[in-house]
């Protein structure tokens, strides 16, 4: 039987890769768990920049940032203190800078530095993004590489 185009189209290729993020503000004792409103913008060597709605926290606040797998549908509520079993990683971070979003007045970019984290686990998470990027790079360049010999 001949092959079909649809056999090569998967839902997975349309899904976004990444993590869900929950935030617990240890300074103001509040939580923000609308992960669909949080976008990870940058993975720093020892920190992270996220896009988030305004007024969740202020410069200097201490936060606990919880990383969940993208497809996790949490069964347990984020506790007011302590560990969260649904998260694959949690870090303590301090808000170093808040930058207004260029077009959306209801969003800001939060620049945080980690104050307490598992360095190896963080490296592993960055590596996961790097692997995904490598898959993309490979697809772009492989088509041209029939001649490139280095």
């Amino acid at each position, binding site marked *: 039987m001949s*092959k079909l*185009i649809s056999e090569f189209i998967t*839902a997975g290729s349309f899904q976004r890769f990444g993590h869900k993020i929950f935030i617990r503000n240890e300074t103001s004792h509040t939580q923000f768990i609308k992960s669909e409103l949080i976008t990870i913008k940058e993975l720093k060597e020892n920190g992270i*920049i996220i896009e988030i709605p305004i007024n969740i926290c202020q410069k200097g606040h201490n936060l606990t940032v919880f990383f969940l797998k993208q497809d996790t549908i949490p069964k347990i509520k984020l506790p007011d203190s302590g560990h969260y079993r649904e998260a694959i990683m949690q870090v303590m971070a301090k808000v170093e800078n808040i930058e207004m979003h260029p077009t959306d007045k209801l969003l800001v970019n939060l620049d945080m530095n980690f104050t307490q984290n598992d360095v190896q686990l963080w490296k592993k998470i960055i590596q996961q993004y790097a692997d995904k990027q490598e898959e993309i790079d490979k697809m772009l360049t492989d088509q041209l590489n029939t001649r490139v010999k280095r």
Partner: protein
Amino acid sequence: MSLYFDPKDKKNKIYIDYFENKSWLVIENSTSARSSIKKTLTQIGAKTANLLEADNITEAENLITTQKPHYIIANKMIQGTSSLDLFEVHIKTLPNRLKAGFFIITEANSLAEVAWALDYEMDGIISMPLNGAIIIQSIIKGVQRKLEPTAYLKKIEDGRTSYLSGELDKAIEQFKSSLLLEKNAFEAMTFLGQIYTEQNLLPEAIEAFEKSLLLNSSYFKTLNLLGLLYYQQKDYKKSYDINLLMAEHYPTAPERIPELIRLSIINKKYEDISNYYKIFQTIKSPAPTMQNSLSAGLAILGKYFSTINDTERGIEALKSAFAFSNGKYEILKSIVHSFESLNRTDVLLELFENTDLSLWPKEGQSIYFHTLHLNSSDDQKVIQEGEKLLKSNIRDPQMYRDIISRSIKMKRKTGYIENMVLEAQKHYPEQASEFDALLNSISKA
């Protein structure tokens, strides 16, 4: 592979040397992202003085044409506007791509984004979140073939320069002469096919593309252009086969979904239709940029199911199409027609009434009114809803016809109906006689 790039490592000298005299333009929305990217670029040899930045399209375009930066790294969306046009500006400003390049940053980090970058012949696509080491990894991969270009590749760039400046005959000569420099000259053949297509020499174009395909069956540009050419020539079987080859090698760009579904329907690949239906039903929260294409695809599936009287799957596909349409007029119109042919506009009305229409474009809201008109026996409600939309400057001729005919049915004052007819004629003078006819029907009644 280690993510860390060591500028002092001997094997990295080639990159440091290459980038030492290259200028860059970083186009990003946020200040912090721009400074992170610039810092990263200095690690691979770029000089701080050669780094430009912009946070809006106008400034970026101006910098490209005046400063001619060799490389650009741009967010796909800058302050809500696509930066894609800048790619065209850049390639025309610096047609020799051995010394220039364009990297795009995308927030939608799905594999489907790759197809989009391939379409534009970008040097790389960097997906968010940004990370210095990951950016370096992508840039290095993207410039690999430019570091020590062969005579053939140099000739290809000469040809591209002539092609972009409109010197097609000169470009043809250059591409033909490049064939002597490389046995596996698939790019040259594809460029020739591209020029022949523009010159409307279609048999020659197809021959060139097919030759390229024999040399490299996975070169995206050939697959893309040849698939399109076959489709335009109505050679749907061959177009299907080329698109199959493309799907085997690359993720499918969401924008191509509607075309692929049409191709499957034309080629009677009914199993494809069922497969698409199943695949799309499993996508629960697609990226906003993908929703229109998915909606258009689902609307075509819904229409197809309605023509073969598969009501159940038709309704389900149309419901999903509606959910992802975001009120886009053309898609909604198609969804409405399919619901009409299934005789289930009641389902559509329910969908409308469970949706916050205030976020939709005006045209989408007018379709709600027509659906309400088709389904509701409550004349008062229909007229009130119509008047509300008219007050918000949402109107079309059919809306006036519906309000007028309902008003006549309700025996509203003639003055009201006459005013409504005058207003309709003011906005749609070309249909004045039709509105008059409605008015005349009062006296007949």
